[in-house]
């Protein structure tokens, strides 16, 4: 089980220990290029796709090509990490500004080109699969002369092959043609934006890993696509990683991650994740170990006062949202660590750890070694995945672990609560955790065992929530929960700035006290204001239930 994870974990240790023998990271030369803001099929997407495929190939052996994505890109750190690599990891970048220049330098690492069909968007996704298998760059018809001018030969031509076909037919053909040869450790869901646009930032890493690319629907109503998606996921090895994201046009996040989880796999988002084929080659600096800003000792006992204790956690992981925006460090804030970056992009994670202020506290996410829904994971697989997550929390010095489950609905409508059996698995599998938190929007699962609480989010702050309403929301919760202490855990949408959050909390008055998350959990452990409770049959299940007939749809104990 989880051979891939164990191997990667071992290789991370080896990289760390061997690098520790050297005083300084080795000097490297690399190339940087800035990508534009146009990701339209009839705009710059063809050139961007060519460049990203070239990146995956050029970076196979060593980190050669790095992109700075536009300011509006979902992941906001590419320019800042570019500076960081130069200052801290001795990478010297030479900037280029065109696809021609990129091919001049890196076409030598490609074995050819694959042509996708301008009139069939899905053919580009299939072309990424071919690119990984054939070590080829992807081009549309207009870019063929550029590729050939750099000595590249045609390795596959998708023009005309898929016209008039449904996505199910296209992916059935692709899976039959290429599925036997693609990685069983990585698969890429090239979803996200749809229609005339695509943001394939993760394609370099998928090509690097020779992954199968798709955006099949996990909506059970799309019966054919759902069945094929289940088949593709079912063909992966235990512990495989599903990179990318679901298609906003086809299904929901909850449906997609549920199907992934039913196959005992985990997600690592998003489709726009940039530069991983580059980052994966950059180790942490010699001797570096990840150290968190703990505010309490594991065995410390804190005594709460008659207060409303508030703690804030940003949603959706590092690299998104408020990290680089003004205000960080002004108040205690917890950040969800994308734990797989410890082996996938170790120096990128070091970048975040080194930037952390004393008010920035890191926690492990999300339900496992990656994003998964524990209620949908087959019962016999869940402890093994939790064990892999525990190892990552050890590496990253994380003592609080966050759980989320949308397999039975969303924050708007559904059941985000955990069964007792699921909670049991986390307590047993993570004995060193000082506590757990649960939900995305508010949830209603609580527990306390051996001084280690499980607290659900009691409030979700969306980025569009007006300050005056948010203040009233929090005051209302404090009225509905009249006992003191009251432990009020906030989940802050990543698009909110810390300045905005601080402005809201500053209006609440002296009864409210904002504390770091580990302090919050220790205080709650001493005087809990909740009774243990779990998802149970008397709570109606209102979300999309596990679809019958999928491989992973096994009875829960």
């Amino acid at each position, binding site marked *: 089980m989880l051979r891939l994870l164990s191997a990667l974990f071992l290789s991370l240790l080896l990289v760390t220990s061997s690098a520790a023998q050297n005083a300084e990271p080795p000097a490297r030369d690399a190339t940087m290029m800035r990508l534009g803001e146009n990701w339209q099929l009839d705009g710059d997407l063809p050139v961007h796709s060519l460049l990203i495929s070239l990146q995956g190939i050029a970076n196979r052996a060593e980190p050669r090509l790095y992109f700075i994505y536009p300011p509006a890109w979902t992941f906001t750190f590419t320019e800042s990490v570019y500076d960081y690599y130069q200052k801290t990891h001795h990478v010297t970048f030479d900037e280029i500004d065109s696809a021609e220049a990129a091919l001049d330098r890196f076409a030598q690492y490609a074995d050819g080109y694959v042509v996708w069909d301008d009139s069939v968007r899905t053919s580009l996704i299939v072309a990424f699969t071919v690119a990984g298998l054939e070590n080829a760059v992807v081009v549309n018809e207009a870019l063929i002369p550029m590729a050939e001018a750099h000595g590249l030969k045609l390795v596959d031509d998708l023009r005309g092959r898929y016209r008039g076909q449904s996505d199910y037919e296209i992916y059935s053909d692709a899976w039959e043609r290429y599925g036997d040869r693609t990685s069983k450790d990585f698969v890429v869901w090239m979803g996200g934006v749809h229609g005339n646009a695509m943001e394939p930032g993760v394609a370099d890493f998928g090509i690097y890993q020779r992954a199968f690319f798709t955006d099949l629907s996990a909506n059970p109503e799309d019966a054919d696509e759902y069945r094929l998606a289940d088949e593709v996921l079912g063909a992966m090895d235990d512990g495989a990683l599903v990179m990318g994201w679901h298609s906003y046009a086809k299904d929901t996040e909850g449906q997609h991650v549920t199907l992934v989880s039913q196959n005992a796999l985990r997600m690592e988002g998003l489709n726009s994740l940039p530069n991983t084929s580059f980052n994966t080659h950059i180790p942490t600096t010699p001797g570096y170990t990840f150290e968190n800003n703990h505010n309490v000792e594991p065995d410390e006992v804190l005594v709460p006062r008659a207060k409303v204790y508030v703690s804030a956690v940003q949603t959706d992981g590092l690299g998104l949202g408020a990290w680089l925006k003004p205000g960080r460090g002004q108040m205690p804030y917890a950040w969800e660590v994308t734990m797989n970056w410890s082996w996938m992009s170790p120096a990128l994670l070091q970048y975040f750890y080194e930037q952390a202020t004393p008010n920035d506290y890191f926690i492990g996410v999300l339900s496992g070694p990656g994003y998964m829904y524990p209620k949908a994971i087959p019962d016999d697989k869940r402890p093994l995945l939790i064990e892999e997550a525990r190892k990552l929390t050890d590496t990253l010095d994380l003592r609080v672990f966050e759980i989320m489950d949308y397999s039975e*609905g969303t924050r*708007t409508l559904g059941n985000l609560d955990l069964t007792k059996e699921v909670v049991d698995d986390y307590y047993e599998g993570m004995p060193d955790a000082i506590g757990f938190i649960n939900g995305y929007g508010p949830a209603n699962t609580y527990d306390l065992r051996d001084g280690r609480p499980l607290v*659900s989010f009691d409030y979700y*702050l*969306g980025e569009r929530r007006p300050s005056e309403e948010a*203040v*009233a*929301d929090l005051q209302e919760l404090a009225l509905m929960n009249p006992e003191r202490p009251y*432990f009020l855990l906030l989940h802050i949408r990543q698009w909110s700035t810390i300045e905005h959050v601080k402005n809201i909390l500053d209006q609440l008055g002296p009864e409210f006290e904002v504390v770091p998350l580990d302090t919050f959990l220790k205080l709650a452990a001493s005087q809990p*204001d909740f009774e243990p409770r779990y998802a149970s049959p008397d709570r109606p299940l209102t979300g999309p239930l596990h679809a019958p007939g999928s491989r992973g749809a096994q009875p829960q104990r």
Partner: protein
Amino acid sequence: MARRLLPALLLFALVTLASHPAPPPPDPEFRGTWVLDDSLSRAIDPWRNLTVEIDVEGDAVILKRLWRGSREGGASVDSVRLVPGTTVRSEPMLQWPDERHLGAYIAGDRTKSVASRWADDERTLITESDFVVSVQQGEHPVRVYTEYRLSPGGDRLDVMELRSTRPRPIHYVFTRADA
């Protein structure tokens, strides 16, 4: 003192209710589907929109609030068949839709007790609801006073709420769906 006054006040209230004439027929202008004007209303996130459907059957007023979310967010209905001058039970609710950012969930039998009456020459419908929510510290009662106030032209519905647990009044503005 208060204990002695309470039975007398209750008796007075009963006599008053018993002697109250039959409720007047509801203003037909209330009927129809009303769509939230989000530029004039308090925020309803994470819901995307809110409509109020009002129908009249004899003395009864059927009041249905429909909250719609994103594709992932689904929808939620909060429906009650009011008989002004009396207290009724609402339909069971799947959830308490009003404040979905809060860890507060409809509890008990999942219904609301709703008293209602007409005012202002039947241009205002007043409701007073009682229900119980499940929160982190257990269960908590909630009382909501609401006025559905029809504009003079009959083309706008102002809904104003005071909730026992919320320090801030709530104001929604609706316009006719077919306007």
